[in-house]
């Protein structure tokens, strides 16, 4: 599904503040794999995710999605396959737009934004039913501006928005970092369910080792721009949590 071939990313090349964020990383992620990425700050996790999404273009190497070379494809074009949830709950939604309008944009993520009115009664009902599955009581506030909601609510809606249109890859960059423990648990549970239900290929970055242990079927630890450990499904389920803590000591 996703193939990274010898990807390097260097920021400020040749200057005193040169940073090698990714150092010749090659990685193949199979369809329906749910990869959890861990690693200390600056290990290259977010850069890796950004290279997949197209928010950053690698200094070297190739990116393939569904065997198609997308190395030079702009981020907004890769959105044909990829949906994203950001660390900052404010990044994934438009504050001034209503919940409904946000969902409309998500529903037409992979298609042309035409000069026709797409928000009709049928669409409203579809969104209402979808939001009701969260059990947050937001289904009656469709006209409310996104900006009036809490971070947890916005993050939950961002997740739902990611499956409004045909999605194959879901990238989650520390989606719960800014949330309280209860909202965080709800978000990850929702994400996990959506990934299973829609058979998505997913990459989750997290600093919470418990979450990393609990979710996903492949675990990758990054260090100084390289893949340090790569545990497949069987190894991952055999892994004990205390052992993971040792990785960081």
């Amino acid at each position, binding site marked *: 599904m996703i193939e990274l071939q010898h990807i390097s990313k260097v920021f400020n090349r040749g200057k005193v503040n040169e940073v090698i964020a990714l150092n010749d990383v090659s990685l193949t992620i199979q369809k329906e794999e749910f990869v959890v990425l861990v690693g200390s700050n600056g290990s290259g996790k977010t850069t890796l995710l950004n290279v997949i*999404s197209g*928010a950053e273009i690698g200094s070297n190497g190739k990116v393939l999605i569904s065997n198609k070379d997308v190395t030079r494809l*702009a*981020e*907004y*074009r890769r*959105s*044909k396959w*990829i*949906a*994203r949830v*950001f660390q900052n709950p*404010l*990044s*994934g*939604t*438009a*504050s*001034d*737009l*209503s919940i409904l*309008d*946000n969902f*409309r*944009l*998500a529903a*037409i*993520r*992979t*298609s042309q*934004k*035409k*000069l*026709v*009115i*797409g*928000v009709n009664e049928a669409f409203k009902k579809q969104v209402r039913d979808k939001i009701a599955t969260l059990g947050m009581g937001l289904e009656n506030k469709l*006209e*409310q*501006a996104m900006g009036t909601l809490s971070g947890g609510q916005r993050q939950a809606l961002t997740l739902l928005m990611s499956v409004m249109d045909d999605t194959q890859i879901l990238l989650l960059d520390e989606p719960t970092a800014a949330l309280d423990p209860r909202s965080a648990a709800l978000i990850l549970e929702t994400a996990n369910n959506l990934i299973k239900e829609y058979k998505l290929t997913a990459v989750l970055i997290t600093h919470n080792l418990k979450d990393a242990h609990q979710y996903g079927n492949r675990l990758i630890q990054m260090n100084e721009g390289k893949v340090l450990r790569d545990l497949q499904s069987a190894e991952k389920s055999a892994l004990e949590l205390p052992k993971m803590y040792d990785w960081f000591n």
Partner: protein
Amino acid sequence: MEFYLTALILGLCLSAMALGIFISMKIFNIPDITTDGSYTLGAVITTVLLTVHWSAIAIIPVVLLSGAIAGMLTGIIHTRLKIEALLAGILVMTALYSINLTILGRSNVPLLNVSNVFSSLHFLTNEVYNNLIISLIFITVITLIVGYVLRTDFGIAMRATGNSASMTRALGINSNKMKIIGLAIANSLTALSGYLVAQFQNFTDINMGIGIVITGLGSVLIGEALIKWWDITSIMGSLVIVLCGSILFQLVLAFTLSIGVDPNLLKLVTASFVLLIVIIPRLKRND
């Protein structure tokens, strides 16, 4: 009374520009200075074409197109050449001054003895009320069109562009293209205000656009304060409130003139008034 009616009509004529500023503010979160130039451009083209006896209606598409080109230039300079939107607007506005002067030929041209949009249509015998009706019809049609566009899938995508850059890209929106199109629409609306005002005042002056962006900005700010106040979420409602903002703005200026403030100080009053609108909501938040 007629004094205030004139202010009301002027407010209506300028509200097309206020709608334009509303769009560019949504996209950039900063006012688009191109407005000063494209407003005069609309007036200049109207005047020149009216004096060679074009019909007022036939001029409209030319005016819209000229404004769109001005806006696109600012958009292209901003997105392709990566120059700050504020500076891009100032550059185009400055360049437009020369272009406007070249088209107009001299700095001031009166529109006497030519039929214009206000004199060619007759609904009422009273001239002032007739002008009011015509400007009202104009602005209603424009508001309906802009309201429709902003409610379409395309319009939602455009409104999202200024909100969250990361989100718009992740949702497959080409934000650079949106900015260019948005600025084109905004400046055609501004040029349309120039078209209306030139015919309403019966003259065009090369300096008529100086500081006009502040008038539009003030209208939008009044509008946004009311939108927040009344918790209006519908886009059509927001547009109507911005129209009211534009009218209110002109009425306030008319009032300051009527209590004997020197007309030379009008720009000073305008700037102070806008400053006041900007700071009042902030003062409240600090409490």
